[in-house]
């Protein structure tokens, strides 16, 4: 219901640590009319048509820094309806300057639905 708003364009950037680019990040919203516990959420990213390896993605929320593979066990943290999470991709050197096609998919395990609700968006964004 909010597919078009799932990625926050102006948060797309390479990430520097101690003067070195260690990866890139983008802010994301939850495509649902309420927040949801992290254990019920599966995410994936692709850049310019290539899937980002799940093991290199981290979800940053409420000061925590979750590996994507961890979140199915997180029963005590929620992605709030109004909150932006930062998806950080561990990729030394980051992304090349310029535009990239960022595809984002969320699969939400909503208990009153027979099958997970899948939200998708793909946007052409310029690195900030």
């Amino acid at each position: 219901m909010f597919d078009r708003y799932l990625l926050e364009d102006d948060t797309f950037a390479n990430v520097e640590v101690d003067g070195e680019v260690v990866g890139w990040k983008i802010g994301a919203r939850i495509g649902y009319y309420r927040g949801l516990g992290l254990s019920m959420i599966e995410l994936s990213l692709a850049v310019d048509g290539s899937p980002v390896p799940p093991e290199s993605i981290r979800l940053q929320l409420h000061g925590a820094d979750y590996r994507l593979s961890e979140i199915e066990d997180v029963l005590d943290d929620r992605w709030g309806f109004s909150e932006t999470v930062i998806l950080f991709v561990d990729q030394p050197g980051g992304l090349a300057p310029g535009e990239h096609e960022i595809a984002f998919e969320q699969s939400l395990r909503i208990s009153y639905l027979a099958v997970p609700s899948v939200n998708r968006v793909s946007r052409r964004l310029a690195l900030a």
Partner: protein
Amino acid sequence: MAVHDIKRGVSLYSFQEEVFLRKLTLDDAVRVCAEMGARGIEVIPEQSFDSFPNLTDAEIGGWHELHAKYGTTPTAYDMFIDLKRRKDRVMTFEEGVESIVRDIKLANKLGCTSMRVIVNTPPEVFEAAAPYAEEYNVRLGVEIHAPMRFDHRWIQQFLDIVHRVDSHYLGIVPDMGIFVREFPRVVAERFKRDGARPDLVDHAVKVYNDHPDDMETLTRELAWRGGTAIDVAFANNVVGYNYVAPETMAPHVPYIVHIHAKFYEMVGDEREYSIPYDEIVPVLIAGGYDGYLSSEYEGNRHIQDVRPVDSVQEVAHQQRMLARLLGEETTTGGSR
């Protein structure tokens, strides 16, 4: 107009678009409702409070201050039960009770005296929650949401409990989306814009509007008419709506705790495009319903691709219609 005590309210669900886009604060939302004369505020804590379920005392205090400021009152708390919280198994009965009791306590803190119990709640959890409902003064009503109807076997389980337990604290929350007589055109038009074949969409809408008893065949039928994935998705969407005659609600009015006045598109202040409120309200008045008609706008997702959503304006249209149907002469003015 018969004498009645039906009150007008709004579910904050209605403003999801603007709240998501951070264009409308909680304060704004409550204020605009008050301005419409809709004094009952329904809340989805999991939407309005990112801290859910651990709301701070400050947040709870702020919520009450808001109502004091605008002269509004909290009505229903919309609860969810995350039965599939764990990937490997569904919640146990005990976990289910723990979840609803958590919600009942929070509803009490928020001053909500009723609770929308979501339709996938196990009936035994609903029943087990009754003593807590009484203790915390929160009336529980299972939502009867499309495509359910009063006589559906799933709903019948809850009605059996409601009749058997015979407590003021157990009842139903009918969502007026069960009375969708004309398929919402905003939904059909959105699917067309998203690539569904216009003739197939029109055909499916025509089929829906005839309310046949074989809606389960619609997917196949669209496929045979040359439909592809998007058309089939539309067919699957269509079977989520339903229509039953408003009079089928009459015997159930004594058990109504709260009402979702669902709507998709207002035609000015006059009528909802799909749902015959002019036939629904008299059933409620005749049955002696004395709770809230709580606006639940769900049109945003169908129009957001072509124009900015103005949920406040949409709700205002519905509130003026409801005021007129409820006989509030001064509010409706010369709108007819």
